[in-house]
């Protein structure tokens, strides 16, 4: 096991940021750590990288306890914090050399060149960090995280704030690293998990609400039938609740609703409902149940009946 977390808890005063979570990550897995903002993702990652200690519970990374063997943990973990802090006055090479030496790299010069090639920073390697675009800075962030060749990479929202092209590039980079490393990546973007991860841990308000392989999560919710419908007039929530078989309701826009049910003929049911009540239907589409829905359902962003 690369990461083993047991009953990890972090409290800030009366507020509980992480509430006794447990999970383990096998060697070579890429795990998406998913949750809305403020769910406790960053806090968990900060504890796993020994930046802050847990209030209760323990965790081991590569077999080293985060409390007692903190230095050993740090030797085996590469960490990219949220917002990717960098010394903007340093040059790319200078910065990577510095982090390499801190990480105990023997042949720093060769390793820096290697990492620069891996993150495709060759053209920018003589620039100051301040001069780099956000996408390139993010690459430097990734480069510094893996400079000491750690077994585990912990990346906190590595693609936030990047433009779509850069997002794709960074994702590809992370996926290519995943071949030999254990990667834990936090995000609140569903597509990211679908694009990179083998497994997903969904966390909400400090609790784990789902921890499974992607396919399993998808299959589990395959019994759901989702319909997006736009009515010609405004309907009350009470009225919509009378549609037979309806399970979850979500109001997307004024008259546009997203409804789901476990009944296979749900689309027909909605159509009948509209006809029977003489409502105008402007649009009626059946949607595939995406990961996004699973996330929304699990993190309670839906009116449940």
């Amino acid at each position, binding site marked *: 096991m690369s990461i083993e977390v047991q009953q990890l808890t972090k409290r800030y005063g009366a507020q509980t940021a992480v509430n006794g979570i447990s999970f383990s990550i096998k060697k070579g897995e890429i795990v998406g750590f998913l949750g809305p903002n403020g769910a406790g993702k960053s806090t968990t990652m900060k504890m796993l990288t020994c930046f802050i200690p847990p209030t209760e519970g323990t965790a081991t990374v590569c077999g080293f306890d985060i409390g007692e063997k903190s230095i050993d943990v740090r030797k085996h973990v590469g960490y990219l914090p949220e917002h990717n802090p960098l*010394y903007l006055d340093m040059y790319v090479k200078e910065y990577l050399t510095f982090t390499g030496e801190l990480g105990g790299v023997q042949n720093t010069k060769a390793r820096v060149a290697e990492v620069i090639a891996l993150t495709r920073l060759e053209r920018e390697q003589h620039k100051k960090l301040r001069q780099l675009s956000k996408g390139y800075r993010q690459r430097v962030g990734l480069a510094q995280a893996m400079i000491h060749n750690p077994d585990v990479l912990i990346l906190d929202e590595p693609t936030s704030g990047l433009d779509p092209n850069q997002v794709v590039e960074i994702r590809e980079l992370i996926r290519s690293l995943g071949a030999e490393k254990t990667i834990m990546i936090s995000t609140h973007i569903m597509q990211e998990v679908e694009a990179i991860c083998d497994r997903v841990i969904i966390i909400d308000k400090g609790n784990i609400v789902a921890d499974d392989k992607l396919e399993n999560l998808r299959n589990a919710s395959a019994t759901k039938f989702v319909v997006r419908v736009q009515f010609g007039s405004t309907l009350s929530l009470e009225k919509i609740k009378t549609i037979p078989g309806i399970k979850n309701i979500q109001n997307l826009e004024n008259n546009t609703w997203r409804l789901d049910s476990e009944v296979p003929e749900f689309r027909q049911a909605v159509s009948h409902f509209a006809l029977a009540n003489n409502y105008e239907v402007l649009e009626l589409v059946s949607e595939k149940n995406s990961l996004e829905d699973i996330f929304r359902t699990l993190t309670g962003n839906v009116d449940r009946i």
Partner: protein
Amino acid sequence: MWTVYKKEIRSFLSSLTAYIVMIVFLLATGLLMWVIKGNTVFDLGTASMSVMFNVAPYVFIFLVSAVTMRSFSEEKRQGTLETLSTRPVTDLGVILGKYFANVTLIVFALIPTLIYYYSIYQLGQPIGNIDTGAMWGSYFGLILLGTAYTSMGLFASVLTENQIISLILSMVLCIFFYSILGWVGDIKALDVIGKSLSWFGLETHYYSLSRGVLDTRDVVFFGSFSVLFIWFTKLVYESRKW
């Protein structure tokens, strides 16, 4: 620790901090020693560097505070403290790296002033009539004073993300431990209490060294002073773990 030390030295050099500190120190002491009428070597008419050694502690208060203010404040503000403290280095290693880098800068700021020593050496009547022992004692005292200032500066810096607050706090600490505790000793009404309080002041020990007598008590005092403030710095640095 030495990696942090090297990085700090590099950043002093690349951000011009090092040059500015050297130039300002040389200018401030030089002007007071040779140019600004009233207290110059020529006015006093003695071949000694006492002017510089009287002024330097005050110039240092400003310079050392100005250099140390960004040590931790900047890292906190930019968030680089998070990448730094999740590396396999101990917290003490980070602090000592920064401490020794700052002390090195102080030593280098003092080196150019040896020109003043040479000038006075040549101006002496007869040539070379200068108390060399006192001079080296003073230099040594000044470096030790610099280490004490540095430890206070780092402590002020670790307390806040705001560099200005750090600067002011550091200067207040330095002035308190250098001047104010020195003045307390002169207050007749306080008698023994004042004298013992002033013993904790840096001024007493600095002047004791500048007489040219290497008293181990003074050296131990400065050493303990640094250790104390580095320990405070470490406490605050680790406060995220509380």
